[in-house]
């Protein structure tokens, strides 16, 4: 049996084991741990999409928060019960067809993803004309515009009052299922000819153009595909929080995505997963620091936000020692693992 086949079988086995674990966890794990695992999955989705746009295509976008908001709001509006909507919209009644809609989760999520992809397309038209930092500024601005629009569309989004009582559809299986699909699709895409075209644009836009690659079109392809999955992440997020308002989606959320990706390694999908896991669990593990800490006879009074300080220090240390994130640009492979474990012998630099 070739190493390739063995790898495929191992991937299949681990996926089955993972699904069984999720089914078990859904029943037996306490809600707090389940929530953390779901948050990791959602962050994985966002990180992988950012990686597609920045790590592979080289376009620095800070627009995640805006696109997440689109996915979250669309899903929330489509899935909430009419009675719940009526309760929420006490300042002004909700716009008519929306107020009567109550879709099930999957069609709502898909619609949200498609709409987010469309908004991503609109955001991409102006912002992908710019390079580097300029693109970051333009996308940051556009995300802010989306937030302000959400704030003012009283009859659709309920403005700054937000939406409460969004059905809690997001389970472990939904979130991790979406994460696995996102990873599988984007990993396959970046390994394809399109992925090489993206990387060519990242490395040398001028040369990519001279090789016949339609630069703007390919940047747009990456951005729209990323937006689609960002929307899924947003929808899952809304149905996890069950309460959203425009200020959930401020620019800090975009920075969080950047942090996860930098922590894990720009250009590595394995790194994205690790980064999301480390980021979310570290944030939870550091939670006690926000409260009062007794050290012998003295007690340091609780200071909300203290864990941000500690987190930043840990983040700095990681970046000092792993300048390119935990994984750099390397990816996990069965070949690597089994060679490390001494089960397979090193193959002499030949692919596959």
């Amino acid at each position, binding site marked *: 049996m070739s190493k390739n086949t063995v790898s495929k079988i191992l991937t299949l086995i681990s996926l089955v084991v993972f699904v069984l674990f999720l089914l078990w966890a859904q029943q037996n794990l306490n809600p707090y741990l389940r929530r953390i695992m779901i948050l990791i999955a959602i962050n994985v989705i966002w990180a992988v999409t950012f990686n597609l746009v920045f790590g592979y295509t080289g376009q620095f976008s800070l627009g995640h928060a805006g696109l997440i908001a689109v996915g979250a709001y669309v899903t929330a509006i489509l899935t909430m019960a009419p009675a719940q909507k009526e309760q929420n919209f006490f300042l002004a009644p909700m716009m008519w067809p929306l107020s009567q809609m109550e879709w099930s989760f999957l069609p709502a999520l898909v619609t949200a993803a498609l709409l987010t992809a469309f908004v991503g397309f609109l955001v991409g038209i102006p912002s992908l004309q710019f390079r580097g930092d300029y693109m970051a500024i333009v996308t940051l601005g556009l995300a802010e515009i989306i937030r302000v629009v959400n704030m003012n569309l009283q009859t659709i989004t309920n403005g700054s009052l937000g939406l409460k009582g969004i059905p809690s559809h997001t389970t472990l299986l939904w979130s991790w299922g979406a994460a696995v699909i996102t990873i599988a*699709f*984007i990993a*396959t*895409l970046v390994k*394809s*000819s*399109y992925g*090489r*075209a993206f*990387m*060519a644009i990242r*490395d*040398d836009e*001028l*040369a*990519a*153009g*001279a*090789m*016949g*690659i*339609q*630069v703007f079109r390919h940047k747009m*392809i990456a951005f729209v*595909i990323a937006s689609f999955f960002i929307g899924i992440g947003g929808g899952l997020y809304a149905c996890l929080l069950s309460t959203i308002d425009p200020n959930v989606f401020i620019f800090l959320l975009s920075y969080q995505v950047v942090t996860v990706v930098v922590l894990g390694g720009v250009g590595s999908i394995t790194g994205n997963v690790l980064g999301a896991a480390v980021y979310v669990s570290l944030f939870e593990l550091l939670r006690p620091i926000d409260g009062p800490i007794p050290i012998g006879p003295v007690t340091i009074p609780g200071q909300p936000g203290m864990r941000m300080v500690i987190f930043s220090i840990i983040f700095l240390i990681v970046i000092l020692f792993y300048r390119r994130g935990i994984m750099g640009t390397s990816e996990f492979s069965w070949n690597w693992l089994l060679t490390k474990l001494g089960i397979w012998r090193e193959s002499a*630099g*030949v*692919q596959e």
Partner: protein
Amino acid sequence: MSVLKVENLTKQFGGLVALSDFNVELEEGELVGLIGPNGSGKTTAFNVITGIYRPTGGRVTLRGKDITGLRSDQITAQGIARTFQNIRLFPQMTVLENVMVGHHLRLKTSPLVAGLGLPSYVRQERAMRDESLELLQITGLEDVAHEKAGSLPYGRQRRVEIARALATEPKMLLLDEPAAGMNPEETHGLMDFIQQILKDFGLTIFLIEHQMRLVMGICERLLVLNYGVTIAKGYPEEIQNDSMVISAYLGVSANVNN
């Protein structure tokens, strides 16, 4: 019919005329050289022809089709490929991947099909890979197919760049100083290589070069630029004895005491 026809091509940067009224016509299978001192507008001429700059005036036609002012990727799709003066490979990718990038514009599939890894895409990927490997074999690069392009010695990087350009299946190849930074032995190898691909791929080649040995050795006709103006055209022997050319290169008037 001529393959490439350039009429009165002009490029101005503000008040600076980098190229003025540039005219050239290349017949099928020809190898024409473009020479001139530094800053004389040779690379500008290439950049305007290949769509990296938009021309201020003039017309470029490829096999009778007007391609003036198109984007560089559209021009490549029409059949003009090029290399750069300062090598512009994708250094992080392997040699094979670099060449496969050149094949991307011929890909007939959507990103959706590629992302789902459907059989119709997998077939194309395999075909693309085989063609690229074949191209590497023809260009004598098969031994470094899986090496990072950036890690190769200079002379071989040049070859990879030419192979990558060939992967776009061009009718016409523009080479910008292919022998820059090469020693005499490498230059000699390159001369043979250029003549070989000219025949094997049925190309027409337009080439900028500083090294007289290479230019005089392989080009059938030459054009000389100075300050953006074409000062001489003709066969290598004529050019060598042209007084305007000599003065442009040596910076003295050829008829000092007349």
